[in-house]
């Protein structure tokens, strides 16, 4: 039983490592900050969750605490990347949009007008 838990833990850590690597590769390859955030957030969330959960499986005493940390990462990680994306847009960094669709521009300008007038 203990061996099986350990193998599951190792597998989870390996999977987490692979996803973290892919996230890093994504940050390197993507063209602008928004797409980089996309690659970074998703891969690092699952990667970190999986790695930490793997530690919990290898060391069962920590499992409950580890689950709480995983939940916290699941809540906090997307939140921070959303804050980064929003503040970047408001700093005036234009996204490189291949499709040319930008629904946010209008709403953002409206808000700026409201606050400055």
């Amino acid at each position, binding site marked *: 039983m203990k061996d099986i838990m350990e193998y599951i833990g190792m597998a989870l850590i390996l999977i987490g490592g692979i*996803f973290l690597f*892919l*996230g890093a*590769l*994504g940050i390197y*390859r*993507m*063209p*602008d900050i*928004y*797409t980089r*955030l*996309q*690659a970074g*957030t*998703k*891969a690092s*969330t*699952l990667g970190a969750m999986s790695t930490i959960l793997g530690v919990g499986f290898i060391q069962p*005493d920590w499992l*409950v*605490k580890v*689950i*709480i940390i995983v939940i916290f990462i*699941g*809540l906090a990680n*997307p*939140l921070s*990347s*959303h804050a980064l*994306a*929003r503040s970047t*847009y408001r700093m005036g960094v234009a*996204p*490189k*949009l*291949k*499709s*040319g*669709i*930008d*629904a*946010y*521009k209008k*709403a*953002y300008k409206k*808000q700026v007008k409201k606050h400055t007038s």
Partner: protein
Amino acid sequence: MSTTKHIPTLKRKSTIGKFIHTFLVMFIIWLAFTTSLEPAELITGAIVSLILAFFTDRIFSCCGLKIFSPIKILYFVQYFFVFMIALIKSNLDIARRVISPDLPINPGIVKFKTKLTNGFARLVLANSITLTPGTLTIDVVNNNFYIHWIDVKFDDPEKVYKEIAEPFEKILLKIYED
């Protein structure tokens, strides 16, 4: 324009249901962190949870004890599975895009309208959207979500809503808006 009535957090009413809800959640987190059943630990945890619940229940809890009804807990479980599948899918999707040599992306910012009025439910929806395939929440203005989409297929708000938000929102509506 906005249909949501925004109530400042300090003016919200505190009820006994909200108090118990906050206390229970705090106490469960305490139990999980200490992982012991010694009386001294339990009493300390209970006192700390009581103090925290007394000060924060109107901010922390949206709808009191209603949240603990069995149907809602079942929906929570369903949401968890829907979310985990979406998370794994999104990782495979982004991995495929990153690995393929010509980098197949077509980014754009789209919007859709949400039906959720509860603050926490909106947070959960925004977070879920950020973690699902190719989408990143940029801002929420009134009832509109603005989404950076790595592979834009259409920009009609209705279709976008169906594609991105519906699977999550219909469960969240059942949990928080009934």
